[in-house]
Protein backbone atom coordinates (compact mmCIF):
# COMPACT_ATOMS: atom_id res chain seq x y z
CA UNK A 1 0.00 0.00 0.00
CA UNK A 2 1.30 3.43 -0.95
CA UNK A 3 0.24 6.11 1.46
CA UNK A 4 0.43 9.69 0.36
CA UNK A 5 -2.08 12.45 -0.25
CA UNK A 6 -2.39 11.72 -3.98
CA UNK A 7 -3.79 8.26 -3.42
CA UNK A 8 -7.19 9.54 -2.31
CA UNK A 9 -7.63 11.32 -5.67
CA UNK A 10 -6.78 8.28 -7.80
CA UNK A 11 -9.61 6.08 -9.11
CA UNK A 12 -10.59 3.43 -6.58
CA UNK A 13 -9.94 -0.21 -7.50
CA UNK A 14 -12.85 -2.20 -8.94
CA UNK A 15 -14.97 -4.40 -6.69
CA UNK A 16 -14.21 -8.06 -6.19
CA UNK A 17 -15.84 -9.72 -9.24
CA UNK A 18 -17.69 -12.29 -7.14
CA UNK A 19 -19.17 -9.58 -4.90
CA UNK A 20 -20.18 -7.50 -7.93
CA UNK A 21 -21.66 -10.65 -9.49
CA UNK A 22 -23.75 -11.38 -6.39
CA UNK A 23 -24.98 -7.76 -6.45
CA UNK A 24 -25.87 -8.03 -10.14
CA UNK A 25 -27.58 -11.39 -9.52
CA UNK A 26 -29.70 -9.92 -6.72
CA UNK A 27 -30.82 -7.06 -8.98
CA UNK A 28 -31.79 -9.63 -11.62
CA UNK A 29 -33.64 -11.72 -9.00
CA UNK A 30 -35.48 -8.59 -7.86
CA UNK A 31 -36.59 -7.99 -11.46
CA UNK A 32 -38.00 -11.55 -11.64
CA UNK A 33 -39.79 -11.16 -8.28
CA UNK A 34 -41.18 -7.64 -8.84
CA UNK A 35 -42.14 -7.64 -12.51
CA UNK A 36 -41.72 -11.21 -13.77
CA UNK A 37 -39.10 -10.38 -16.37
CA UNK A 38 -35.34 -9.95 -16.44
CA UNK A 39 -32.97 -7.15 -17.33
CA UNK A 40 -32.25 -5.95 -20.86
CA UNK A 41 -30.59 -3.28 -22.97
CA UNK A 42 -30.85 -3.82 -26.73
CA UNK A 43 -34.67 -3.69 -26.65
CA UNK A 44 -34.38 -0.12 -25.36
CA UNK A 45 -32.27 0.76 -28.41
CA UNK A 46 -34.97 -0.63 -30.73
CA UNK A 47 -37.59 1.45 -28.91
CA UNK A 48 -35.54 4.63 -29.39
CA UNK A 49 -34.95 3.83 -33.08
CA UNK A 50 -38.68 3.16 -33.61
CA UNK A 51 -39.59 6.40 -31.88
CA UNK A 52 -36.98 8.47 -33.75
CA UNK A 53 -37.93 7.07 -37.12
CA UNK A 54 -41.62 7.56 -36.35
CA UNK A 55 -40.93 11.25 -35.63
CA UNK A 56 -39.04 11.77 -38.91
CA UNK A 57 -40.92 9.50 -41.33
CA UNK A 58 -44.05 8.06 -39.68
CA UNK A 59 -45.42 6.24 -42.75
CA UNK A 60 -42.08 4.64 -43.51
CA UNK A 61 -41.67 3.58 -39.86
CA UNK A 62 -45.04 1.80 -39.90
CA UNK A 63 -44.06 -0.06 -43.07
CA UNK A 64 -40.99 -1.60 -41.39
CA UNK A 65 -42.27 -4.96 -40.20
CA UNK A 66 -39.62 -5.47 -37.53
CA UNK A 67 -40.32 -2.12 -35.80
CA UNK A 68 -44.02 -1.69 -36.54
CA UNK A 69 -45.07 -3.74 -33.51
CA UNK A 70 -43.52 -1.08 -31.28
CA UNK A 71 -45.62 1.61 -33.03
CA UNK A 72 -48.96 -0.16 -32.59
CA UNK A 73 -51.32 1.37 -30.03
CA UNK A 74 -51.53 4.92 -28.75
CA UNK A 75 -48.58 4.99 -26.37
CA UNK A 76 -45.18 6.22 -27.50
CA UNK A 77 -42.66 3.40 -28.06
CA UNK A 78 -40.54 5.18 -25.44
CA UNK A 79 -43.08 4.30 -22.73
CA UNK A 80 -41.39 0.97 -22.51
CA UNK A 81 -39.95 -0.88 -19.54
CA UNK A 82 -36.45 -1.14 -20.98
CA UNK A 83 -36.22 2.59 -21.73
CA UNK A 84 -36.89 3.42 -18.07
CA UNK A 85 -34.48 0.70 -16.96
CA UNK A 86 -31.85 2.17 -19.29
CA UNK A 87 -32.23 5.63 -17.75
CA UNK A 88 -31.68 3.99 -14.37
CA UNK A 89 -28.52 2.28 -15.66
CA UNK A 90 -27.10 5.67 -16.64
CA UNK A 91 -27.80 7.12 -13.19
CA UNK A 92 -26.58 4.06 -11.28
CA UNK A 93 -23.34 3.81 -13.26
CA UNK A 94 -22.69 7.55 -12.90
CA UNK A 95 -23.27 7.31 -9.15
CA UNK A 96 -20.87 4.40 -8.80
CA UNK A 97 -18.30 6.07 -11.09
CA UNK A 98 -18.39 9.36 -9.15
CA UNK A 99 -18.10 7.61 -5.78
CA UNK A 100 -15.05 5.71 -7.03
CA UNK A 101 -13.53 8.71 -8.88
CA UNK A 102 -13.72 6.72 -12.15
CA UNK A 103 -16.03 9.10 -14.06
CA UNK A 104 -13.87 11.00 -16.56
CA UNK A 105 -14.04 12.00 -20.23
CA UNK A 106 -11.65 9.59 -21.92
CA UNK A 107 -11.33 7.24 -24.91
CA UNK A 108 -10.74 3.64 -23.87
CA UNK A 109 -8.04 2.15 -26.12
CA UNK A 110 -4.69 0.38 -26.24
CA UNK A 111 -1.40 2.27 -26.64
CA UNK A 112 -0.86 1.49 -30.34
CA UNK A 113 -4.10 2.69 -31.90
CA UNK A 114 -5.08 6.23 -32.92
CA UNK A 115 -8.16 7.83 -31.43
CA UNK A 116 -9.84 8.03 -34.81
CA UNK A 117 -9.28 4.34 -35.57
CA UNK A 118 -10.56 3.36 -32.13
CA UNK A 119 -13.73 5.43 -32.57
CA UNK A 120 -14.34 3.95 -36.03
CA UNK A 121 -13.95 0.46 -34.57
CA UNK A 122 -16.32 1.36 -31.74
CA UNK A 123 -18.95 2.44 -34.27
CA UNK A 124 -18.44 -0.67 -36.40
CA UNK A 125 -18.52 -2.97 -33.36
CA UNK A 126 -21.70 -1.32 -32.11
CA UNK A 127 -23.39 -1.83 -35.50
CA UNK A 128 -22.40 -5.51 -35.56
CA UNK A 129 -23.61 -5.94 -31.98
CA UNK A 130 -27.01 -4.45 -32.86
CA UNK A 131 -27.44 -6.81 -35.83
CA UNK A 132 -26.42 -9.80 -33.70
CA UNK A 133 -28.80 -8.82 -30.91
CA UNK A 134 -31.63 -8.34 -33.42
CA UNK A 135 -31.11 -11.86 -34.80
CA UNK A 136 -30.86 -13.39 -31.34
CA UNK A 137 -33.77 -11.47 -29.82
CA UNK A 138 -31.63 -9.89 -27.12
CA UNK A 139 -28.11 -9.12 -25.99
CA UNK A 140 -25.79 -10.03 -23.14
CA UNK A 141 -28.36 -8.72 -20.62
CA UNK A 142 -31.68 -9.91 -22.00
CA UNK A 143 -30.43 -13.23 -23.33
CA UNK A 144 -27.21 -14.34 -21.62
CA UNK A 145 -27.82 -12.99 -18.11
CA UNK A 146 -31.61 -13.22 -17.86
CA UNK A 147 -32.08 -16.37 -19.94
CA UNK A 148 -29.00 -17.92 -18.34
CA UNK A 149 -30.54 -17.65 -14.87
CA UNK A 150 -33.86 -19.09 -16.13
CA UNK A 151 -32.07 -22.01 -17.89
CA UNK A 152 -33.55 -20.82 -21.20
CA UNK A 153 -32.32 -23.20 -23.93
CA UNK A 154 -31.80 -20.57 -26.62
CA UNK A 155 -30.08 -18.19 -24.21
CA UNK A 156 -27.46 -20.79 -23.28
CA UNK A 157 -26.78 -21.60 -26.94
CA UNK A 158 -26.52 -17.86 -27.60
CA UNK A 159 -24.14 -17.30 -24.66
CA UNK A 160 -21.71 -20.01 -25.80
CA UNK A 161 -21.70 -18.49 -29.29
CA UNK A 162 -20.98 -15.00 -27.92
CA UNK A 163 -17.81 -16.27 -26.26
CA UNK A 164 -16.93 -18.32 -29.38
CA UNK A 165 -17.41 -15.31 -31.68
CA UNK A 166 -15.40 -12.98 -29.46
CA UNK A 167 -12.47 -15.39 -28.99
CA UNK A 168 -12.44 -16.13 -32.73
CA UNK A 169 -12.10 -12.44 -33.63
CA UNK A 170 -9.95 -11.27 -30.67
CA UNK A 171 -6.60 -12.00 -32.29
CA UNK A 172 -7.45 -9.87 -35.36
CA UNK A 173 -8.20 -6.76 -33.32
CA UNK A 174 -5.46 -7.14 -30.71
CA UNK A 175 -3.74 -4.02 -32.13
CA UNK A 176 -6.67 -2.04 -30.82
CA UNK A 177 -6.26 -3.14 -27.21
CA UNK A 178 -2.68 -4.28 -26.52
Amino acid at each position, binding site marked *: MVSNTHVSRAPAPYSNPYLAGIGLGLVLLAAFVFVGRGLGASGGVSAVVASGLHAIAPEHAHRLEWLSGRLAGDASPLEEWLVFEGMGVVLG*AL*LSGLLARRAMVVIEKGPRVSRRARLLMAFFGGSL*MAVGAAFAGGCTSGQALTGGALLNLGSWAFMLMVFAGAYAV*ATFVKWQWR
Partner: protein
Amino acid sequence: MMAPFLKYGVFGSETSLVVAFLLGIGFGFALERAGFGSARKLVSQFYLDDLAVFKVMFTAIVTAMLGVTYLSWIGFLNLSLVYLVPTNLLPQIVGGLVLGAGFVIGGYCPGTALAATATGRVDALIYGAGLYAGTLLFAEAYPLVKGLHTATPMGQTTIPQYFNLPYGLVVFAVVLMALGGFAGAGWVEKKMAARKAAAQAAA
Protein backbone atom coordinates in the same frame (compact mmCIF):
# COMPACT_ATOMS: atom_id res chain seq x y z
CA MET B 1 -47.95 -17.57 -4.60
CA MET B 2 -47.34 -13.82 -4.37
CA ALA B 3 -44.69 -13.06 -6.96
CA PRO B 4 -44.11 -11.77 -9.61
CA PHE B 5 -45.78 -8.81 -7.87
CA LEU B 6 -46.80 -7.10 -11.13
CA LYS B 7 -48.52 -10.25 -12.41
CA TYR B 8 -50.46 -10.66 -9.14
CA GLY B 9 -51.62 -7.05 -9.27
CA VAL B 10 -49.60 -5.83 -6.27
CA PHE B 11 -48.86 -2.75 -8.40
CA GLY B 12 -49.87 -1.60 -11.89
CA SER B 13 -48.01 -1.20 -15.15
CA GLU B 14 -47.33 2.53 -14.58
CA THR B 15 -45.66 1.77 -11.27
CA SER B 16 -43.68 -0.94 -13.03
CA LEU B 17 -41.91 1.81 -15.00
CA VAL B 18 -40.73 3.34 -11.71
CA VAL B 19 -39.59 -0.12 -10.64
CA ALA B 20 -37.75 -0.42 -13.97
CA PHE B 21 -35.91 2.82 -13.25
CA LEU B 22 -34.94 1.67 -9.74
CA LEU B 23 -33.79 -1.75 -10.97
CA GLY B 24 -31.80 0.04 -13.68
CA ILE B 25 -29.97 2.07 -11.02
CA GLY B 26 -28.95 -1.18 -9.31
CA PHE B 27 -27.97 -2.72 -12.64
CA GLY B 28 -25.83 0.27 -13.67
CA PHE B 29 -24.24 0.53 -10.23
CA ALA B 30 -23.28 -3.16 -10.24
CA LEU B 31 -21.87 -2.96 -13.78
CA GLU B 32 -19.70 0.06 -12.96
CA ARG B 33 -18.55 -1.47 -9.63
CA ALA B 34 -17.39 -4.55 -11.53
CA GLY B 35 -15.32 -2.37 -13.88
CA PHE B 36 -17.62 -2.87 -16.85
CA GLY B 37 -17.67 0.83 -17.64
CA SER B 38 -14.22 0.27 -19.16
CA ALA B 39 -13.74 -1.34 -22.59
CA ARG B 40 -10.16 -2.33 -21.72
CA LYS B 41 -11.37 -4.20 -18.65
CA LEU B 42 -14.18 -5.90 -20.63
CA VAL B 43 -12.07 -7.10 -23.57
CA SER B 44 -9.35 -8.44 -21.23
CA GLN B 45 -11.68 -11.44 -20.99
CA PHE B 46 -10.82 -12.28 -24.60
CA TYR B 47 -7.05 -11.88 -24.12
CA LEU B 48 -7.29 -14.05 -21.00
CA ASP B 49 -5.39 -11.79 -18.58
CA ASP B 50 -8.47 -10.69 -16.60
CA LEU B 51 -11.51 -12.98 -16.57
CA ALA B 52 -13.80 -10.65 -14.59
CA VAL B 53 -16.50 -10.79 -17.31
CA PHE B 54 -16.85 -14.54 -16.88
CA LYS B 55 -16.66 -14.38 -13.08
CA VAL B 56 -19.23 -11.59 -12.71
CA MET B 57 -21.61 -13.01 -15.30
CA PHE B 58 -21.64 -16.53 -13.93
CA THR B 59 -21.81 -15.39 -10.30
CA ALA B 60 -24.85 -13.28 -11.26
CA ILE B 61 -26.45 -16.15 -13.19
CA VAL B 62 -25.91 -18.61 -10.31
CA THR B 63 -27.16 -16.10 -7.70
CA ALA B 64 -30.35 -15.30 -9.60
CA MET B 65 -30.87 -18.95 -10.63
CA LEU B 66 -30.60 -20.19 -7.04
CA GLY B 67 -32.88 -17.38 -5.86
CA VAL B 68 -35.53 -18.24 -8.44
CA THR B 69 -35.23 -21.96 -7.62
CA TYR B 70 -35.61 -21.55 -3.84
CA LEU B 71 -38.35 -18.91 -4.09
CA SER B 72 -40.42 -21.12 -6.37
CA TRP B 73 -39.82 -24.22 -4.20
CA ILE B 74 -41.21 -22.46 -1.12
CA GLY B 75 -44.21 -21.38 -3.20
CA PHE B 76 -43.45 -17.65 -3.16
CA LEU B 77 -42.60 -17.15 -6.85
CA ASN B 78 -44.71 -18.53 -9.68
CA LEU B 79 -42.00 -19.35 -12.21
CA SER B 80 -44.53 -19.96 -14.99
CA LEU B 81 -45.37 -16.23 -14.88
CA VAL B 82 -41.73 -15.15 -15.37
CA TYR B 83 -41.31 -14.28 -19.05
CA LEU B 84 -39.09 -16.64 -21.03
CA VAL B 85 -37.81 -15.44 -24.41
CA PRO B 86 -38.80 -18.04 -27.04
CA THR B 87 -35.96 -20.11 -28.47
CA ASN B 88 -35.06 -19.80 -32.17
CA LEU B 89 -31.89 -21.84 -32.20
CA LEU B 90 -30.37 -20.99 -35.59
CA PRO B 91 -30.76 -17.17 -35.48
CA GLN B 92 -29.60 -17.24 -31.86
CA ILE B 93 -26.44 -19.13 -32.82
CA VAL B 94 -25.73 -16.76 -35.73
CA GLY B 95 -26.67 -13.71 -33.66
CA GLY B 96 -24.43 -14.86 -30.80
CA LEU B 97 -21.41 -15.21 -33.09
CA VAL B 98 -21.99 -11.78 -34.69
CA LEU B 99 -22.60 -10.19 -31.29
CA GLY B 100 -19.44 -11.76 -29.84
CA ALA B 101 -17.41 -10.33 -32.73
CA GLY B 102 -19.02 -6.93 -32.16
CA PHE B 103 -18.13 -7.17 -28.46
CA VAL B 104 -14.36 -7.47 -28.97
CA ILE B 105 -14.31 -5.06 -31.95
CA GLY B 106 -16.44 -2.38 -30.29
CA GLY B 107 -15.33 -3.00 -26.71
CA TYR B 108 -18.77 -3.10 -25.10
CA CYS B 109 -22.18 -4.73 -25.13
CA PRO B 110 -25.31 -2.54 -25.08
CA GLY B 111 -25.77 -2.45 -21.28
CA THR B 112 -22.12 -1.84 -20.48
CA ALA B 113 -21.93 0.85 -23.19
CA LEU B 114 -24.68 2.72 -21.38
CA ALA B 115 -22.75 2.48 -18.10
CA ALA B 116 -19.52 3.54 -19.85
CA THR B 117 -21.16 6.50 -21.59
CA ALA B 118 -22.56 7.62 -18.23
CA THR B 119 -19.02 7.69 -16.81
CA GLY B 120 -17.59 9.71 -19.71
CA ARG B 121 -16.21 7.10 -22.16
CA VAL B 122 -16.33 8.79 -25.58
CA ASP B 123 -15.76 5.49 -27.40
CA ALA B 124 -18.85 4.07 -25.67
CA LEU B 125 -20.90 7.03 -26.91
CA ILE B 126 -19.75 6.37 -30.49
CA TYR B 127 -20.38 2.66 -29.98
CA GLY B 128 -23.94 3.61 -28.98
CA ALA B 129 -24.32 5.52 -32.26
CA GLY B 130 -23.25 2.30 -33.98
CA LEU B 131 -25.96 0.42 -32.08
CA TYR B 132 -28.61 2.77 -33.44
CA ALA B 133 -27.18 2.51 -36.96
CA GLY B 134 -27.10 -1.29 -36.83
CA THR B 135 -30.65 -1.47 -35.46
CA LEU B 136 -31.91 0.82 -38.22
CA LEU B 137 -30.02 -1.23 -40.82
CA PHE B 138 -31.61 -4.44 -39.53
CA ALA B 139 -35.08 -2.87 -39.58
CA GLU B 140 -34.63 -1.63 -43.16
CA ALA B 141 -33.13 -4.89 -44.40
CA TYR B 142 -35.64 -7.07 -42.54
CA PRO B 143 -37.30 -8.52 -45.67
CA LEU B 144 -33.88 -9.94 -46.64
CA VAL B 145 -33.12 -11.48 -43.24
CA LYS B 146 -36.60 -12.44 -42.06
CA GLY B 147 -36.09 -16.04 -43.18
CA LEU B 148 -33.11 -16.50 -40.89
CA HIS B 149 -34.58 -14.40 -38.07
CA THR B 150 -37.67 -16.61 -37.84
CA ALA B 151 -35.97 -19.95 -38.57
CA THR B 152 -36.10 -22.97 -36.22
CA PRO B 153 -38.79 -21.71 -33.81
CA MET B 154 -38.95 -23.91 -30.72
CA GLY B 155 -41.19 -21.79 -28.48
CA GLN B 156 -40.53 -21.09 -24.81
CA THR B 157 -38.31 -23.92 -23.67
CA THR B 158 -35.75 -24.50 -20.95
CA ILE B 159 -32.79 -26.88 -20.80
CA PRO B 160 -34.58 -29.17 -18.28
CA GLN B 161 -37.70 -29.26 -20.50
CA TYR B 162 -35.84 -29.85 -23.75
CA PHE B 163 -33.58 -32.62 -22.44
CA ASN B 164 -36.28 -33.98 -20.13
CA LEU B 165 -34.12 -33.61 -17.02
CA PRO B 166 -35.17 -32.72 -13.45
CA TYR B 167 -34.96 -28.94 -12.92
CA GLY B 168 -32.98 -29.31 -9.71
CA LEU B 169 -30.40 -31.53 -11.39
CA VAL B 170 -29.68 -28.91 -14.07
CA VAL B 171 -29.44 -26.19 -11.40
CA PHE B 172 -26.95 -28.33 -9.47
CA ALA B 173 -24.93 -29.01 -12.65
CA VAL B 174 -24.76 -25.30 -13.48
CA VAL B 175 -23.52 -24.49 -9.96
CA LEU B 176 -20.80 -27.17 -10.24
CA MET B 177 -19.85 -25.93 -13.70
CA ALA B 178 -19.58 -22.36 -12.43
CA LEU B 179 -17.44 -23.37 -9.45
CA GLY B 180 -15.16 -25.35 -11.78
CA GLY B 181 -15.06 -22.37 -14.14
CA PHE B 182 -14.09 -19.98 -11.31
CA ALA B 183 -11.21 -22.26 -10.27
CA GLY B 184 -10.13 -22.55 -13.90
CA ALA B 185 -10.33 -18.77 -14.40
CA GLY B 186 -8.06 -18.17 -11.41
CA TRP B 187 -5.56 -20.69 -12.79
CA VAL B 188 -5.56 -19.07 -16.27
CA GLU B 189 -5.05 -15.59 -14.79
CA LYS B 190 -2.05 -16.82 -12.77
CA LYS B 191 -0.51 -18.47 -15.85
CA MET B 192 -0.98 -15.31 -17.93
CA ALA B 193 0.51 -13.10 -15.20
CA ALA B 194 3.55 -15.40 -14.95
CA ARG B 195 4.01 -15.35 -18.72
CA LYS B 196 3.80 -11.56 -18.81
CA ALA B 197 6.33 -11.25 -15.97
CA ALA B 198 8.71 -13.61 -17.79
CA ALA B 199 8.38 -11.60 -21.02
CA GLN B 200 9.13 -8.36 -19.18
CA ALA B 201 12.15 -9.89 -17.40
CA ALA B 202 13.51 -11.05 -20.78
CA ALA B 203 13.03 -7.64 -22.40
